[in-house]
């Protein structure tokens, strides 16, 4: 990490010169807030040397006004009272920088979204509130410090985890851009699920025919290093500078292998081939499929007769003319240094054995859609003949059952996205080979939502495929001929059906990989309740993860088809490429500063850090903040009992100053709300945008995360006589900082206990979760709290003031 030498910080208080600018925003603010009055009031506040109101302060003229005032009045802090900082903070920060003022010396008071727009009809009260908001902003501004953003170099190498079609595409795109890529695959060959499929929808392209060239491109590319039969075991470091350990398991066959197959022919050990879902046999020395990349064979040491160091059977060694077999190969740990990581670990398929009513695993002629792909594939175990496993005959009638393991509480609740189209494709494949086959498709809904999907669906109907809405409730087997009876209700015609077919194909869903939890831990990712990895933002950052420098592609993120996987892979490669092309990244200066003399190396901060960005070395008595890994949530600062961590731009002093300013007048009628930048503050903004009206007595303090809200802030608000306090953040599981809001929950619960113990009314402290779209919920929460405020007695306020006085910061 490189840090620029920091500028000397202004030391004495008398130097502080604040300029305040109150915006009318046309009538958006001035319609319900008397902006001139607010500006006149601001002029009376300490350190304020200039205070002006302006019609549109964000306009070029408005910005010029600020810039010239900075020069003329030697301003060293600027406060703008206008819209939400989420909208124009960058604009004004830039203006300050252009006038030579450090951008961290700028503060905003949100008097539009959180004042004028939500109190449209209470001009007087809204003006009073705007004054309070300006007072809070000025109080904070006086304590702002100039900050330098640190720069981190980015290693121009990438790692892609998972060699399915998404991983291959991402690796190829990055490699073609010119970056070195390590493609790590757990299985002996890249190719993934797509290699197992026969045809792809909606174009009916042969799957392996379009995939194999990409696989060999990836295998041959000078910028791609393939690490197959390998697993990532450790990831350390942070964006731009990851140190990764990869365990390369031995193949026991060297690259001299010519893939002639002589070894496999003599190998005496056979087992079902996983690639063919157990429908064909492989040997202990094998290649998973003909087009495997690398084509080098592999020895399955769990099956091979040769254990440890004893060579009992040397048939393959004798058969191999290239002398490529080496039983002495050992597992090897490779250490890589990469700047970005793309997670393309893919998905598993649902195992329908647990659905006893469908008889999978009991009735030989009930197969899964993946088994179907291998059977219908010309290179598969049956040479492309759709045969019944019971008698190897081609059935006259088949039935597809949709949503097996999807959209049901018996499997997974979500839709697996690909099964409808896959079945339609499969039914057309059957019709193509055996046009007289009678095909029934039992479905819940047919979701043919993509480009060309509806046409394919229509084609299937035209070809005579019978679609019946309503899944069979059970399947019975005719023991003599192994035919199957499907019994259920046609929900469109409201009548029962009993259909006899020769074969049933269960259209199984996609599920998260079992080892997702391990990947999640290695890379500090988050997963949704279904178990798939979460994107940083579902709309605007769909391939980023909460961890900087880590991106998602393919089914690891959610079930998707090949086209979507490839699209996402290219997007992930572009996102990773942007970082690497820049070569360095600046970190917003909201990370903690360690005061070493206060630190006791207790490790509490490291325990609550969602990013492992704090390393605590108890032996060497050293705590270290890895700034590039830190996202600035501030939960460490809230946890530290020794004031050893200063959260830059959200310091304890600044927050206390805001609390003090907000409680200067009529504290006993006010609600102090702590809102996190990403969800609850944005939710409050949204209430404003939607003009949802709520009581004027709430004062919002913005923190990056609710995890920043230290219990002492809440206590000090009560000690200052505040009637009620609201702590709010993103919904649990949706935290912008992985899981920091769980710390919020824990701290508030602890505070409730303390309040109960002290005999205080714990309803005065509320905890609520809002998304950025839940403006309505925010407004109604404030209305609800207004009732609490009304019922808080004077004695109660005095009692809390007295009991919690200790929480007030020491004044000089």
């Amino acid at each position, binding site marked *: 990490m490189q840090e620029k030498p920091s500028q000397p910080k202004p030391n004495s208080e008398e130097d502080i010169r604040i300029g305040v600018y109150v915006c009318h925003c046309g009538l958006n603010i001035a319609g319900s807030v008397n902006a001139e009055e607010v500006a006149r009031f601001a002029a009376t506040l300490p350190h304020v040397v200039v205070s002006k109101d302006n019609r549109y302060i964000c306009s070029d003229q408005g910005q010029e006004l600020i810039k010239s005032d900075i020069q003329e009045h030697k301003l060293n802090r600027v406060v703008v009272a206008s819209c939400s900082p989420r909208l124009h903070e960058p604009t004004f920060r830039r203006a300050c920088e252009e006038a030579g003022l450090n951008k961290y010396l700028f503060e905003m008071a949100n008097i539009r979204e959180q004042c004028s727009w939500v109190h449209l009809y209470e001009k007087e009260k809204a003006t009073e509130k705007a004054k309070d908001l300006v007072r809070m902003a000025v109080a904070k501004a006086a304590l702002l410090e100039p900050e330098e953003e640190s720069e981190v170099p980015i290693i121009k190498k990438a790692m892609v985890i998972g060699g399915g079609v998404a991983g291959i595409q991402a690796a190829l795109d990055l490699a073609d851009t010119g970056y070195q890529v390590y493609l790590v695959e757990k299985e002996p060959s890249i190719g993934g699920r797509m290699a197992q499929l026969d045809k792809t929808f909606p174009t009916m392209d042969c799957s392996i025919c379009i995939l194999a060239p990409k696989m060999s491109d990836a295998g041959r590319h000078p910028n791609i290093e393939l690490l197959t039969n390998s697993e990532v075991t450790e990831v350390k470091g942070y964006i731009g500078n990851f140190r990764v350990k990869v365990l390369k398991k031995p193949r026991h066959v060297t690259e001299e292998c010519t893939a002639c197959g002589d070894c496999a022919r003599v190998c*005496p*050990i*056979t087992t*079902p*081939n*996983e*690639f*063919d*879902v*157990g*429908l*064909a*046999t492989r040997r202990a020395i094998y290649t998973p499929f003909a087009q495997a990349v690398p084509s080098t064979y592999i020895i399955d040491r769990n099956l091979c*007769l040769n*254990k440890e160091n004893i060579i*009992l*059977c*040397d*048939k393959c060694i004798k058969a191999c003319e290239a002398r490529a077999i080496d039983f002495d190969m050992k597992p090897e740990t490779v250490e890589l240094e990469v700047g970005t990581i793309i997670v393309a670990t893919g998905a*598993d*398929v649902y*195992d329908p*054995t647990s659905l006893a009513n469908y008889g999978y*695993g009991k009735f*030989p002629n009930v197969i*899964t859609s*993946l088994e179907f792909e291998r059977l219908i594939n010309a290179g598969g*175990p*049956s040479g492309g003949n759709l*045969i019944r*496993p019971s008698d*190897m005959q081609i059935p006259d009638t088949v039935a597809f059952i949709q949503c097996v393991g999807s959209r049901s509480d018996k499997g997974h609740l979500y839709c697996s996205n690909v099964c409808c189209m896959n079945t339609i494709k499969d039914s057309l494949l059957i019709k193509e080979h055996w046009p007289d086959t009678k095909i029934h498709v039992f479905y819940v809904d047919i979701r043919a939502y993509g480009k060309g999907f509806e046409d394919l669906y229509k084609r299937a109907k035209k070809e005579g495929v019978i679609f019946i809405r309503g899944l069979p409730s059970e399947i019975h087997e005719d023991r003599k001929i192994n035919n199957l009876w499907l019994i259920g209700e046609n929900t469109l015609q409201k009548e029962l059906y009993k259909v006899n077919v020769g074969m049933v194909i269960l259209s199984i869903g996609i599920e998260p990989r*079992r080892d997702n939890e391990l990947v999640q831990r290695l890379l500090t990712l988050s997963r949704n309740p279904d178990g798939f990895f979460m994107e940083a933002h579902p709309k605007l950052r769909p391939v980023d993860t909460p961890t900087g420098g880590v991106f998602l592609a393919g089914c690891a993120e959610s079930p998707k088809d090949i086209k979507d996987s490839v699209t996402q892979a290219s997007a992930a490669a572009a996102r990773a490429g942007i970082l690497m092309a820049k070569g360095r990244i600046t970190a917003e200066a909201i990370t903690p500063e360690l005061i070493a003399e206060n630190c006791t190396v207790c490790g509490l901060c490291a325990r609550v850090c969602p990013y492992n960005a704090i390393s605590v070395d108890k032996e060497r008595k050293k705590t270290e903040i890895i700034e590039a890994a830190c996202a600035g949530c501030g939960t460490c600062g809230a946890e530290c009992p020794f004031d050893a961590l200063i959260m830059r731009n959200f310091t304890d002093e600044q927050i206390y100053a805001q609390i003090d300013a907000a409680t200067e007048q009529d504290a006993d009628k006010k609600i102090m709300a702590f809102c996190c930048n990403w969800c609850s503050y944005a939710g409050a903004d949204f209430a404003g945008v939607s003009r949802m009206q709520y009581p004027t007595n709430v004062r919002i303090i913005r923190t990056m995360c609710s995890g920043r809200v230290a219990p002492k802030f809440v206590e000090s608000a009560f000690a200052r006589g505040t009637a009620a306090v609201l702590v709010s953040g993103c919904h649990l599981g949706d935290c912008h900082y992985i899981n920091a809001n769980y710390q919020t929950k824990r701290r508030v619960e602890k505070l409730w206990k303390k309040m109960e113990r002290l005999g205080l009314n714990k309803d005065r402290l509320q905890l609520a979760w809002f998304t950025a779209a839940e403006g309505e919920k925010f407004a109604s929460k404030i209305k609800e709290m207004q009732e609490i405020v009304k019922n808080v007695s004077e004695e109660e306020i005095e009692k809390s003031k007295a009991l919690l006085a200790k929480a007030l910061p020491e004044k000089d």
Partner: protein
Amino acid sequence: MPLRIWRKPLDADKIKIPQAEIHIIKDRCKGCGFCIEFCPREVLETSEELNVRGVHPPKVKDENKCTLCHFCAAVCPDFAIFSIEKDCGGGC
């Protein structure tokens, strides 16, 4: 690939693994038991009978499991055991 593998592979009957014929020259055996111990497929076991040297020679438990690795022949100190491929011309 977590989909449970439970079927008999379709080609299971077509895969031809050479069948073994195990020959034990009982009276050469001195009963060291190496062949029994080292056989990777556990094809052999001690028999009840006594040979001319007064020891229990091995006997074949399950000839079908033999993979013709010939390791028994390699470890036998007395050249008392060997395996050959069965002539399956007429079908085994």
